């Protein structure tokens, strides 16, 4: 059975369809990656339109709280096996928005990220490098972020709810000093 799994993993690595969630400035790096200069299709990676069809979720840049909600929903609509690529510094630690009240700091607290691409912006070569790396990981059976998500669902859910479903002000002591209006 394990041979079968290896075969399946081998072909999965050769055919990864990507859903790009273009939240930030990073989206501009994708057209060159897709088109003739760098051509990601030669790795079997094709952009797809909906989460149902996709294997990779590529988050291109910073995520506001509002967009995080959509990303989580989209991620949950995707079907296993699925992988997440965090693109750019913003997904790693918030990047230049590290102290922003509205931009999350680290994507992998909310959904499992298989590979981060560092840089601001990462160049298309870096994206392709990540794809190749992901392909190797998939073929070795290492990219199991979606299983981690299922296993630690409560932890991820708690983190998501902490950000998305706030019921009281975050900074309580300041609230006493200044009142709105």
């Amino acid at each position, binding site marked *: 059975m394990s041979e079968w799994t290896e075969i399946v993993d081998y072909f999965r690595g050769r055919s990864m369809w990507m859903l790009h969630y273009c939240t930030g400035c990073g989206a501009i790096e994708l057209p060159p990656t897709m088109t003739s200069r760098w051509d990601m299709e*030669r790795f079997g990676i094709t952009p797809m339109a909906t989460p149902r*069809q996709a294997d990779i979720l590529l988050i291109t840049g910073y995520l506001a709280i509002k967009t995080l909600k959509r990303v989580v929903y989209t991620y949950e609509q995707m*079907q296993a096996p699925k992988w997440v690529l965090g693109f750019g510094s913003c997904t790693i630690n918030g990047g230049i928005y590290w102290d922003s009240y509205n931009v999350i700091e680290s994507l992998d607290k909310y959904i499992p990220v298989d590979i981060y691409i560092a840089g601001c912006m990462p160049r298309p070569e870096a994206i392709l490098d990540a794809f190749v790396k992901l392909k190797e990981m998939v073929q070795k059976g290492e990219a199991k972020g979606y299983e981690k998500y299922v296993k630690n669902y409560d932890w991820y859910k708690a983190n998501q709810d902490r950000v998305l479903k706030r019921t009281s002000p975050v900074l309580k002591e300041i609230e006493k000093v200044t009142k709105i209006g």
Partner: protein
Amino acid sequence: MVIVEFLIKLAQGFGIGALALATGLLFGGIGRKIMARIQRRYGPPFTQNFIDLFKLFSKGSVSHGWAFDLGLVAGFAPMLAAIMFLPIGPFTLLPSDSSLIMIVYLMMMAYLGMAMGVLASGNPNSAIGMSRALMLMAGYEVPFAAVIFSVYLFSKTGYLTQIVAQQSGGFMNWNIVKMPLGFLAVEIALQGMLGEKPFDQAIAPAEIASGPMVELGGKYLGFGMIQHSVGLFLETGIVVDLFLGGAPNFWIFIAKQFVLYFVVILVDAILPRLRIHEATSFFWKLPLFLGILQAVIVIIQGGVLNV
């Protein structure tokens, strides 16, 4: 004895189905490669579609109920059934039933099934896509039918096998020489049938999220891929049998099919997408004119049968 015969036919049928699927997938892969080269890319390996299909069948998917499942199965099963009546080179599995209009209507059953499946998903994008696909069908089927009818009148038979047999004996006997206008009309209609640009309104990915396929994932998308690949084989195969004189063996047959598909890919590579009502009315203008002109020529040449 009958049972043995039936089992032999069954085995042959599965063989033909597998062959058609493999050819369709290969064509798709080569098409992607050609497209990449036109765009000065390296392109995916030409086996990419096989890998994609394999991956899709190993991937999880969501179902929206039994109508969704039934519809998607009904989307590719009739397509495979229609292959059994198509003369592939010298070989036809069921030559006595190879009526052209019947094959066309079996293909429509596949569209009906597909439509049922994707519409049962309840996504408005798929409904918009389906409505576009149907409107486009109202366009390309009309010139296609006009040409089918002129071939009927010309060959005085409705069997594809006999139409092929009548064209044997060299290039000058092919219907493409005798009915060039009809061939032109069919070639344009083929572009619409295969849903390639400028007639890819139904699956406009950036516009309506790939239209009918919006809710399909995993094996359902795989079924859609089978339908498309087998449909590619079937539709180009029909044109080869109608106009390019069939073929003495399988390899020449797929070579001829590939020539047709190559033209489609080239057109696909250079044209943008039309708006849907422009596309539909386009088919009612030039291709229909060509098809009817061809029919009139055939009739004037003495094609009318005395009943």
